[in-house]
């Protein structure tokens, strides 16, 4: 399983050119299991409701593309809708991905 994280709208790189990638093929069994658990939890929690009514400014949007068994699922959330599970998966990818 491979995951590609992009972040948009932030103070640096607003168009998300600098992706962060993790691949279970390059992980220990332990790490791969932890990663799979975080992905499952993020998938299980749908994005929250956006309470900003489109008035948020400088808020960031995040996409995590999960490639598994030849298929790609895109998880997309923002500062206005981000769940705790998505945030934890995002943080994990940033900690373990190679620097872009």
């Amino acid at each position, binding site marked *: 399983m491979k995951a590609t994280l992009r972040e*948009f*709208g932030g103070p640096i790189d607003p168009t*998300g050119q600098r992706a962060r990638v993790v691949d279970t093929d390059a992980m220990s069994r332990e790490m791969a299991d932890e990663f799979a658990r975080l992905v499952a939890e993020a998938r299980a929690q749908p994005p929250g409701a956006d309470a900003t009514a*489109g008035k948020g400014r400088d808020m960031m949007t995040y996409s995590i593309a999960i490639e598994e068994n030849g298929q790609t699922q895109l998880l*997309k959330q923002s500062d*206005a809708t*981000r769940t705790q599970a998505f945030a934890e998966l995002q943080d994990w990818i940033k900690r373990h991905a190679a620097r872009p």
Partner: protein
Amino acid sequence: MACHCRYVNCILPPHLLRRLLDSSNAEIRHAALNTLLSTARLRGERAMMAAFGAAAGDARRTIYDCRHSTSLRSARLIRSEDGNASRDDAGNRAFDGFGATRAFYSEVFNRDSIDDQGRQLDGYVHYGRAYNNAFWDGRQMVFGDGDGVLFTDFTKSLDVIGHELTHGVTEFVAGLEYHDQPGALNESMSDVFGSLVKQWSLKQSADQADWLIGPDVFTPGIQADALRSMKAPGTAYDNPDLGKDPQPDSMDNYAQLPNTDEGDNGGVHINSGIPNKAFYVTSREIGGFAWEAPGHIWYEALRASGPNTSFQEFADTTYQKAGQLYGAGSAQQKAVFEGWAEVKIKITGVDTTPAPTPAPPTPTPAPASDKELIALLVKQVDDLSATVKQLASELNPAKSA
């Protein structure tokens, strides 16, 4: 001297009022003095309101600690308007930054908080974990701590705080939609007035200012000047960790991006470099304090703008406002022309740089403009007096409480 303001709804800014004190027309001198005294009395009443515990919503500051959650609902109060300083430095910095921004809009533009009706200012610090950003969510400002590798605490840059709160001002004043050119103007307004908050707080002239946005948010080891440079868009950073600053410095390099998240909503954070530079050049050409003539021209132009204002329309409006405030062919209007010309935006209907008009040492007032000017000053004094009276009546119950 004569004020050439012909826009009867404009408010004469303090620096113009002070110049009017030297007018050869006694009636103008008297009216200008009355206006300044009324403004000072209004500030005094507001200060007394703060001292006695102002009514709720009177731009009161409240700071909350998110404790590294991304939920604002679970945040804990750590500093209130009338409370003691917090043990949390980030909370205190946010509180002080809100105060500086509030004071800037009040003193410079006579604006009572972001909505001009004393809207309270709420801030949330320690948002998320290693969150490399700060934002305005439509109602309050949220600060991240940074990851400690690239970024430090986002409360450390006063211009960033001014930037985010100005998004609130823009929403109430013009409602510039957050995509494509209106969105880039929205971002630029926040950089312009965010920078002016900093310059005003430090009493820096245009040539003393750094014209950088967020110079204090990077960790010491990162080779970067700032998040953005208004003076030289595209040069704020260029290193392997951050990449290169993508901002263009003229319409020649305008970034055509889709109105999507991936396209930064049409490049709102990217193309803002163009109007940013126009403001910097205007300020450089006028000289002195940038929050005076340039700031007032831009503020009046923002007030005359709407949700879909484009770069061209805004440029034309700044040129028009400069003429209204300082006179057609004035040094200020020429500076606005040059500011936009430098970013390759030609003012509509103006073929060349306005002909040089030497500034007279003692301008001679024309009788017709004096009459309008006196009427404007009388109205301004009446408006200020009404506001003072209202504040005084609100203050009395607070005094006896």
